[in-house]
């Protein structure tokens, strides 16, 4: 199952998943990764900072998300909180609409595809 195909699926949907997580509430890097792993690790594999941060940079660079830096009392450092921009909200709405259309379309093909139950 860990073929190239599945990798491509995951890659394509990860940005949308990140946007959804950020849309739900203002959040920061570690929380995003924890949440990703809590909900999706079994299917998506374990999320790593090395994968997530570069995508966050790109989303921010294209104006879909914004961030503010908040001093963190707990560890003496600071945390970068991400939220969606107006553009990001609009983009995500369109993306989700397309995703639903896309999956229901693909599902129609899957439904009609009867594979032999014999192993």
């Amino acid at each position, binding site marked *: 199952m860990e073929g190239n195909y599945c990798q491509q699926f995951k890659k394509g949907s990860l940005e949308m998943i990140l946007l959804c997580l950020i849309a739900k509430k203002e959040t920061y890097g*570690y929380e995003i990764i924890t949440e990703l792993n809590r909900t999706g690790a079994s299917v998506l594999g374990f999320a*790593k900072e090395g994968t997530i941060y570069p995508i966050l940079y790109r989303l921010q660079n294209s104006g879909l998300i914004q961030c503010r830096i908040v001093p963190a009392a707990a560890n003496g450092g600071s945390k970068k909180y991400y939220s969606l921009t107006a553009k990001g909200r609009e983009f995500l709405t369109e993306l989700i609409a397309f995703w639903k259309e896309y999956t229901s379309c693909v599902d129609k093909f899957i439904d009609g595809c009867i594979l032999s139950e014999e192993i």
Partner: protein
Amino acid sequence: MSKEQYLKNVKNKLLIPRKQQSEILRDLEEIFLSAAEHGETEQQVIDRLGPPEDFARDAESQLGIDRKRCKFRMILGIFSTIAIALVSLLLTVWIYSLQPSPQIIGQSDSMTSIQIISSSPLPIPLIIFLLGIAALFIALVLIIRYYRKK
């Protein structure tokens, strides 16, 4: 590898402007601090992050940075500083070769009452010479930086 070492290695590999560089380093700092808060060791975080080169490269490619163009600009910088250094050092040599020697007056080695007074507070040949040295130094720094980031 320690956290400091990791951050330093990432920094050395980044070709992007300083402002974006410090942004990435700040984020790495946060990654380590948040992980520590949840009981993870530095080594665990480093294992998960992967090699510093890869982290730097991925971050740059997602920021839309063209490494080839950055490298080209660095090489251009090296060559132009070397050119400035060469021109100013040659100019200094040339100016000094033009200057009359103190013995030229009256072909005598005895003292004369003629004094040469410079019109500017700092002699221009000296300024040009220092400029050349500075350019040479900058070129050297740029070359070292280029090889470390490659």
